[in-house]
């Protein structure tokens, strides 16, 4: 069984602030780590390999430094690692990221099962996996909470559809996005770190991809444009209420804040 896990490097802390005046994003350190949601994706792959055998590859797209997350994945037990990197990919939105990843996946072989995380802690769109599946023309299921069974030709999963929980069987090749807490991710092992120190991380650049059309990648290939980024307004400062009819006032506040609508 061939499993590919998509992983992304993200800034260390999600507690990124912004200078209200200059609009500069403040980062406590320049440090990065593997997107925490991707640890669950990798752990899922490791558990499946324990049961069904096979190989796990990880793929990340990012700057050269993103090699670090592939090394982290090696320390957890991944067999092969790929880094998709090229200046042509700079400024990619979801569409351009997914397209580049799908091209790289075709290059390395899409395998049986592609696993990605629920979302990232930076861009936070939860769309990359699904868009990849479209470009690859394979089915996908998101919000996967549990792997029920692994068969030679299909996987049976439990997924959270919001109002319901569903059990579904999906044949390979397919893509799943797993929820946080599907399994407890293992810690990187020192022994594996040493054992994989010399294991190469294969670099993939634009000229290895089948589609060489640069207008499909990077900023040019990105339909969405970030016009501006700014700090959220913290308008809800402190208000103090005193006097009569406090319960009625509170009711009006909750109604206007849509807390009295039916919840689904």
């Amino acid at each position, binding site marked *: 069984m061939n499993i590919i896990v998509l992983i992304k490097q993200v800034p260390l802390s999600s507690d990124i602030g912004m200078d209200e005046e200059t609009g500069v994003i403040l980062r406590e350190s*320049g440090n990065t780590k593997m997107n925490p949601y991707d640890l669950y994706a990798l752990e899922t792959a490791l558990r499946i390999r324990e049961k069904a055998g096979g190989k796990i590859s990880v793929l990340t797209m990012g700057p050269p430094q993103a090699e670090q997350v592939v090394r982290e994945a090696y320390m957890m037990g991944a067999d092969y690692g790929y880094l998709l990197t090229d200046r042509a990919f700079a400024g990619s939105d979801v*569409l351009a990221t997914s397209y580049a990843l799908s091209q790289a996946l075709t290059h390395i072989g899409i395998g049986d099962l592609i696993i990605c995380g629920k979302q990232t802690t930076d861009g936070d*769109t939860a769309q990359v996996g699904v*868009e990849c599946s479209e470009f690859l023309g394979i089915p996908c299921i998101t919000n996967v909470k549990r792997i029920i069974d692994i068969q030679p030709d299909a996987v049976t999963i439990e997924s*959270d*559809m919001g109002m319901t929980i569903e059990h579904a069987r999906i044949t390979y090749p397919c893509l799943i996005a797993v929820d946080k807490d599907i399994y407890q991710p293992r810690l990187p092992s020192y022994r594996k770190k040493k054992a994989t120190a010399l294991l190469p991380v294969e670099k993939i650049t634009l000229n290895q991809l089948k589609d060489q059309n640069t207008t499909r990648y990077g900023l040019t290939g*990105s339909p969405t444009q970030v016009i501006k980024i700014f700090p959220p307004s913290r308008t809800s400062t*402190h208000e103090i209420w005193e006097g009569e009819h406090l319960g009625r006032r509170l009711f009006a506040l909750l109604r206007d*804040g849509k807390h009295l609508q039916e919840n689904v």
Partner: protein
Amino acid sequence: MSHIAVHQNKAVDYKALSALCPFGAIVVDNGHIAVTSACRMCKLCIKNDTRGVFELVEDDVAGTDTSEWNGIAVFIEIYEMKIHPVSLEMIGKAQELAGKIGHSVYAAAAGEKIHTAHVEELLHYGVDELYLYEAPELKHFRIEPYTAVFEDFIVRRRPSVVLVGGTSIGRVLAPRTAARFRTGLTADCTILDIQENTDLDQIRPAFGGNIMAHIRTTKHRPQFATVRYKIFNMPERITNPTGTVIHCTLPPAKLNSTIEILKVHHKEKVKHLEEADVIVAAGRGIGSRENLKYIEYLAELLDGEVAGTRTLIEAGWIDPRRQIGLSGRTVRPRLIIACGISGSVQFTAGMNGSEKIIAVNIDPNAAIFSIAHIGIVGDVTKVIPELIENIKADAAADVKADAAAEGTAERSTS
């Protein structure tokens, strides 16, 4: 290829220049300033450098002819016997946007069999054209047939904007369809507005809510956006709808799927405190165990969870799993109402990240007021029962209004 060009002759303070980039993309390479592939094109370097070292060099890409795409479309989510309320909220937003540019509102719904009452309900909320797709294959949401339906609808109607609910289903359907049209999708928008030239202004939080991004999709159509539930307002129900219904079918081959749904069951309601959207928390100030019933009732009315301070846990009034604080749970609900809680640091450490904090305390100097967005100085044993009375009265009035509306509209419920 679009990129950030560096005017080396203007670059003086290399260290200050590298510090401009929040993504670490500006580096000193071989004695020159260089922009690496870590660049996210956020343009902050251009904005914040006064000497004009950085410049955006853009390729001219031929985009879509935007004038061929008109109208605001909404994907309607119908599950079993219910229209997801986010669909109605989006219709309201779609009307507002369409009104500004003189366009129409379109909607598409899919299912095994769509109830007439649902169809009429949607028209009453102001949809001009409703496209219905019914087939046994559409009984459960599966990605391939639903994308085929949505694609068919978009090709037929060519809307400028497509709104999809940020639900479990919408968050798969929207990216899959947007990728098929090779167009942009902005996730979880909290503000939407439209320009005269039909460009949609989309504002969304990222980095866990620490940053807001203003996003546009100017050269591609349709412009996809997902919207979470309870962000936009419910539209008014209109009495004389004028919209029409268009029944569509797809060839069975397009409705194939390699996904087999084996079992569907409803979610149990018991939630972990950490996952609750709304929490009503009680402290010693509620006075008696007896009074806990108001707290529980309020939580039920708000579809929230009950929690408590350590004091009440130790008194045995509340289950230990419901303790908030340093030695309890850390929560970040959309709303927390702290009732009779002093606001010790050990308690607030577990909840001060909540989106909206309302505190009721009789003591105007209570510490909880320093972190509350709304501080209510009053007796919790009076304020909460009064609140409950008002909620109940309002719900009763709604039921009456609904009954009246059904009477006048003479809806067929067959």
